């Protein structure tokens, strides 16, 4: 019968249940199967330095014991199991120790849950009867305690391992992203050379042909098509290069409010057509930044474009600017449902897109531009409702000197997760 309990405890501790579920089941099992009237498991909380009631089979339990309180405190001090019995069940004192948990019981046995020096907690058994358990049973409970301790240990190790694994995985994802970006830089550099030169020839000679063709000739449109397509390809190459290479920034003092307004203006019609209500709350305080206004506008264009694209069937676009000490802050909020949490870590990656016609470079470019201006982007994703992209840029004094150490340790983040 004793071994029966032991084997069932082992079965439970080896199961796939979460740790607290396991402990509750074990406590319940012991309370039912042993001649005891209460069984509790207290786990040692290293941070708070307290024993906390985690599981109990039958009856209530004292919620927590301090490091030196009650029987658990005594067990922690001596490192060994303790057994008390008393005459008056209403007293709280047994074995020279005061313990509120003893009220209403006649005797108790408390076993340490530990592995060498590592403390996990105590197993607390109580009885209303005069006699405690026979020696054979006690030994078995000692074994059970060890089994519980080792199952807590492996659970803790597992959690540690899983955290380490997650960290590694996260790091790997970021490394891969960095690599992708670098590869993109190299790719675009060779792209520039391999494609731009032939394009110069094709486009250049097309232009020469065009001059030779008589006006009104049916062949004119052919040549014009060639020219137009070449121009288009050249623009694509410029786009990719502009973002991949550190294009020289044309720095001037720019007013963030004006740049934002400019960007918004571009989308007025699209918003109107898509029945998107635009709420503009621009700061009255000036927000001068040292910036390449053209690039900065591209950054906001991309954010606004994404917001609008997320609200195909209408919604609300809120653009708010405010001064926060020496930061100019821009919030762009949409009601487009946000981003599935599982993929939000990817949105700044080059070529990541969920759109049929997207290139997936919008946010990559935006991130790069903002970082180049010593700013950061934060993303607050309210999945199901919408998303807020927050851009923070260091403001300058009127003379247009770049504020020193603009980053000030700021980091872009995706709702608490660091962006690449």
């Amino acid at each position, binding site marked *: 019968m004793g071994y029966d309990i032991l084997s069932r405890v082992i079965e439970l501790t080896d199961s796939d249940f979460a740790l607290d579920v396991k402990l509750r089941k074990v406590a319940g099992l012991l309370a039912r199967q042993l001649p005891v009237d209460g069984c509790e498991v207290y786990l040692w909380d290293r941070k708070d330095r307290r024993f906390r009631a985690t599981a109990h089979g039958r009856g209530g339990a004292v919620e927590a014991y301090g490091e030196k309180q009650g029987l658990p405190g005594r067990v922690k001090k001596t490192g060994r199991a303790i057994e008390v019995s008393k005459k008056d069940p209403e007293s709280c004192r047994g074995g020279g120790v005061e313990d509120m948990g003893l009220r209403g019981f006649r005797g108790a046995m408390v076993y340490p849950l530990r592995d060498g020096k590592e403390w996990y907690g105590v197993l607390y058994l109580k009885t209303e009867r005069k006699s405690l358990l026979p020696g054979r049973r006690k030994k078995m409970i000692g074994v059970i305690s060890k089994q519980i301790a080792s199952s807590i240990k492996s659970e803790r190790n597992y959690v540690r391992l899983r955290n380490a694994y997650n960290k590694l995985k996260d790091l790997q994802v970021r490394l891969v992203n960095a690599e992708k970006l670098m590869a993109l830089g190299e790719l675009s550099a060779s792209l520039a050379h391999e494609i731009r030169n032939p394009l*110069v*020839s094709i486009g*250049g000679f097309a232009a020469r042909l065009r001059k030779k063709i008589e006006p009104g000739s049916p062949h004119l449109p052919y040549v014009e098509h060639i020219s137009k397509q070449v121009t288009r390809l050249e623009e694509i190459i410029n786009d990719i290069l502009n973002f991949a290479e*550190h294009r*020289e920034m044309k720095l001037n003092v720019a007013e963030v409010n004006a740049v934002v307004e400019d960007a918004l203006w571009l989308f007025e019609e699209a918003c109107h057509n898509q029945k998107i209500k635009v709420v503009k709350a621009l700061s009255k305080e000036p927000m001068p930044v040292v910036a390449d206004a053209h690039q900065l506008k591209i950054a906001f264009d991309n954010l606004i474009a994404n917001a609008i694209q997320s609200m195909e069937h209408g919604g609300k676009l809120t653009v708010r600017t405010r001064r926060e000490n020496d930061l100019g802050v821009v919030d762009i909020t949409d009601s487009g449902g946000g981003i599935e949490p599982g993929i939000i870590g990817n949105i700044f990656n080059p070529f990541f897109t969920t759109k049929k016609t997207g290139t997936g470079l919008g946010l990559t470019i935006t991130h790069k531009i903002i970082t180049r201006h010593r700013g950061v982007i934060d993303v607050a994703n309210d999945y199901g409702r919408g998303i807020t992209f927050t851009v923070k840029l260091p403001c300058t004094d009127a003379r247009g000197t770049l504020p020193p150490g603009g980053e000030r340790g700021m980091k872009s983040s995706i709702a608490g997760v660091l962006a690449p």
Partner: protein
Amino acid sequence: MKKRVLVVDDEEGIRLLYKEELEEEGCSVELAASGEEALKRLEASSIDLVLLDIKMPGMDGVEVLRKIKEKWKDLPVILCTAYPHYKQDFGTWASDAYVVKSSDLRELKEKIKDILQRKA
């Protein structure tokens, strides 16, 4: 008198294109397919302006530029390249202008006109 322009580029298509276009603008154009050839040409005849490609097999444009400026300090050189970011590289500062290659030759022609006028 016609201004003499030396076009240095390893791609035949681009040499031909520049030659025809610049001749139409009233220049007389000489061609070189490599840096070495360009330097030889410069020794042999008097040139008013050099259009220099940066990325060429053998001696690259930046090196050619240095050699030109050592010997012919006042000879204007326009660097042409497919990479906009070369602009910041050391070495290119010595050129008189810098043009990112494009099938639209207007920018290039304007720079040429500017420089030749300044020189005159």
